[in-house]
């Protein structure tokens, strides 16, 4: 330890006094506001520059204590992200299914069918070359053979085989399947035969009946048909030019048989034939249904009736 000189001791005392005066001044009033802002002006650029250079370093150093937890957090967040992504996808699927179920309920309500909702779990020719679908409802749910299966859009097919938990459906689009049909409005009866993925074909019983594109078909009584009545089948898109014999037509089904998801099995049919009330309202451009006699082929009177009775099911 060395001795300080007298001059140094004086300097120390003077500087300490100056500092004390500063402290007193600044503590009593705000005498250094100008000095502070001046210093900020001088140091500001320096500090900004240093911040720009060192803030990544600072962040890196700051991250070190949290490194282990950060990794865990990342894992956790990644897992949550996957989860949410999956939920989002499922929600879209659910929304789609909810919509289908809604349509199904509406249709069932219009036709007064008692419907059991079910999901298609398999689609394909599991029995020979028949067009079939498997649904996740079986005899324990009350499904019996020959019950009608439909969606919110229209006819799907009928139950062919039932096991405890699943049932096999023969689709109406099966080329060997025939469905008794009745034309909306005119009530002409006919037979609709499946056409695989393509259109179905319609053969009417009445050789004098008139068919036009846009005419709509529902299931109707025919032969030993076990389909419940009034289920929409499809719409006529082309009329055959068969010459002699009963008139024929090609029919586009309302249901796309390759895109089935939510279907309904009609457990109990309506007490009375719902006739045309289940049909969707006809599109305005082709709202001229055929009539039973060629003489009265003016735009039909039955189309508005259909529209009013069906309301707006979709």
């Amino acid at each position, binding site marked *: *330890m*060395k001795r*300080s000189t007298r001059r*140094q001791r004086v*300097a*120390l005392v003077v*500087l*300490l006094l*100056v*500092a*004390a*005066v*500063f*402290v007193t*001044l*600044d*503590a009593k009033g705000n005498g*250094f506001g100008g*000095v*502070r802002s*001046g*210093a*900020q002006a001088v*140091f500001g650029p*320096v*500090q900004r520059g*240093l*911040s720009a250079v*060192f*803030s990544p*370093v*600072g*962040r890196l*150093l*700051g991250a070190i*204590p949290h490194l282990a937890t950060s990794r865990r957090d990342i894992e956790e967040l990644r897992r949550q992200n996957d989860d949410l992504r999956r939920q989002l996808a499922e929600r879209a699927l659910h929304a789609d299914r909810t919509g289908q179920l809604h349509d199904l309920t509406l249709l069932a309500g219009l036709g007064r069918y008692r419907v059991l909702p079910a999901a298609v779990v398999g689609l394909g020719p599991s029995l020979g070359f028949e067009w079939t679908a498997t649904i996740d409802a079986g005899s324990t749910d009350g499904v019996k053979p020959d019950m009608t299966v439909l969606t919110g859009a229209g006819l799907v097919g009928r139950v062919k085989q039932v096991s405890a938990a699943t049932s096999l459906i023969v689709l109406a689009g099966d080329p060997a399947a025939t469905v008794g049909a009745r034309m909306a409005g005119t009530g002409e009866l006919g037979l609709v035969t499946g056409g695989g993925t393509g259109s179905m074909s319609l053969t009417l019983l009445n050789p004098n009946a008139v068919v036009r594109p846009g005419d709509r078909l529902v299931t109707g009584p025919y032969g030993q048909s076990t389909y419940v009545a009034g289920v929409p089948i499809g719409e006529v898109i082309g009329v055959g030019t068969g010459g002699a014999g009963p008139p024929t037509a090609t029919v586009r089904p309302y249901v796309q048989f390759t895109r089935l998801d939510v279907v309904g099995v009609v457990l109990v049919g309506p007490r009375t034939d719902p006739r045309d009330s289940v049909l969707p309202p006809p599109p305005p451009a082709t709202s001229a249904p055929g009539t039973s006699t060629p003489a009265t082929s003016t735009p039909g009177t039955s189309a508005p009736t259909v529209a009013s009775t069906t309301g707006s099911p979709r």
Partner: protein
Amino acid sequence: MTAARIFVAGLGAVLAVAVQGTVIARLPLPGGLPNLPLLVVVGVALAAGTTAGLACGFGTGLAADVLSDHPVGLLALCLALVGFGVGLLEPESDRGALRSLLAVAVAAAAAQLGYAALLGLLGAGGGTAVAELPSTVAYDVLLAPFVLPVVIGADRRLRSVVA
């Protein structure tokens, strides 16, 4: 004490204050932070003696004061005392590394205690400063081996160049 040495000492002090505010203040250390301006003052005092330590301490403290929220002059007072006291530890010939670290520890504790005491006198509360005393001293001692050689080496080189 030549003009070049004073200039470099002042530059080092300013840099230390700026780094303290931008880099060290952001370190997520538990219980206080190392005090880089203090280390620079201690280094200058060890290298250049009482007068230099006193001047450097006062100037550095004042610069740190005007950039902070507490009343101006607090750190100037504390660091001036620290610089003066450490400057008394010359001559450098019989100074070992351990003694330097001891000087740092005592200086850090004294500065922190003086700061806390002055804050308490002003009624601004120095409780946090007292509570953080041990950790702050420990951080200063840990940082000193990186700062002191730089400051002392720079001073020695400047002296040899000028002389």
